[in-house]
């Protein structure tokens, strides 16, 4: 178990910045938004929570294809499936490694990007809280998407297509928490929903992922 986690982390760091790149992508996407919609401060402030959540989601999504595809190509998954480690546990660990290398850094840097997007003062805390609570769900759901598409050569785009709709509830509640927070409203209800989704997904999704992966390994 720990061996798998440390190996995945080591690989993420060595293969040219597993940490850095997710971050950099998040940064770039949020930086591109003003170029696209124009440099109007109050407009930016209004869409800031949503854009930051969307940016985090896309950064997560883009790194998903590294999650299983490499291990599939070089046969590691075949060998893991025949190993004593249950596939469910292996996939949970891989999701955890993905979160540590992608989700966690995003959470930590989001306040800086909030500044760039003119996020109103009270929004910062809630942005961080909602991301910290929501990104684990993104990693776990993403693992399912990766398991579904792992047999497909370069299934990156297909996976995005499958995963994005699954991300909708997390995105809605997460962005709602951040938005209400930024407008000084009470974010408890969406926060509870977000927490519920994350808890449920972390507990149950690995079962589905393992089932999908087993089919793909056949």
């Amino acid at each position: 178990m720990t061996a798998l986690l440390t190996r995945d982390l080591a690989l993420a760091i060595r293969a040219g910045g597993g940490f850095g790149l997710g971050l950099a992508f998040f940064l770039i996407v949020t930086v591109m938004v003003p170029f696209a919609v124009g440099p109007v401060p109050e407009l930016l402030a209004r869409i800031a929570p949503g854009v930051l959540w969307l940016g985090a989601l896309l950064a997560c999504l883009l790194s998903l294809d590294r999650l299983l595809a490499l291990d599939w190509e070089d046969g590691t998954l075949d060998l893991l499936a025949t190993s004593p480690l249950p596939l469910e546990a292996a996939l949970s660990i891989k999701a955890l490694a993905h979160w540590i290398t992608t989700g966690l850094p995003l959470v930590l840097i989001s306040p800086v990007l909030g500044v760039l997007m003119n996020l109103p003062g009270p929004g910062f805390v809630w942005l961080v809280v909602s991301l910290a609570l929501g990104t684990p769900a993104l990693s776990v759901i993403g693992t399912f998407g990766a398991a579904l598409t792992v047999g497909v050569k370069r299934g990156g785009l297909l996976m995005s297509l499958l995963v994005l709709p699954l991300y909708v509830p997390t995105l809605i509640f997460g962005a709602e928490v951040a938005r209400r927070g930024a407008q000084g409203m009470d974010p408890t209800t969406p926060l509870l929903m977000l927490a519920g989704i994350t808890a449920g997904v972390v507990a149950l999704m690995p079962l589905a992922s393992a089932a999908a992966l087993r089919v793909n390994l056949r």
Partner: protein
Amino acid sequence: MSMSNETAAPKRPSGFWSYANPVKFLGLTERVLPALWLLSGLSLVVGLIWGFFFTPDDFRQGSTVKIIYLHVPSALMAINAWFMMLVASLIWLIRRHHVSVLAAKAAAPVGVAMTLIALFTGAVWGQPMWGTWWAWDPRLTSFLILFLFYLGYMALWAAIEDPDTAADLTSVLCLVGSVFAVLSRYAVNFWNQGLHQGASLSLDKEENVADVFYFPLLVCIAGFVLLFFALVLYRTGTEIRLRRARALLAREARA
């Protein structure tokens, strides 16, 4: 630095290009660096203390003008570091001197630090002056883009295993990136006319920077320039040693 087991190469280029030889380069920098460190430290200390303690407040900006002693030199160096990387990359692509590309590699983190200082001091300055930490002003925006180019350049170095491949690819990226950085500058100017002051270092625009601010600023700029050179030379030496260690290890493994 012991490279005593090296034999002399058959024919060596002379003059400036002779420093493309790592041994000679290390020999030179070993001698120059102490002076460089000392000078840069001295001018930084003098400039910053002069600027911070012994200059008056501006009538409009109050004490915030003191930020200029960090902001302007770092912004200058951030741009010039990239320019230096561009020249060094070109030298590598054309003459294939390893030291040159290693110097470019060594300059990137220094450039990033300068960019970060410029961005941070600018943001801290902007809060009282413009009422916001950040505005999508063209100057600021193109700085952010420069920061991204630095990140990309460093990430590419980190991602590629073979040093010569990495050198070639990062050099090509530096070239293409420079063109696009200039393009972006124009695009950004077109997209938003900003808040940031124009060039105020030119001496004829006396209204912008009075002499009291101007001289300590010059000392600070000199300090940053010297520090940049000291850092880059030292780091290039480090990169050369890492390359050599890598080569020796590989040779050992194969023997």
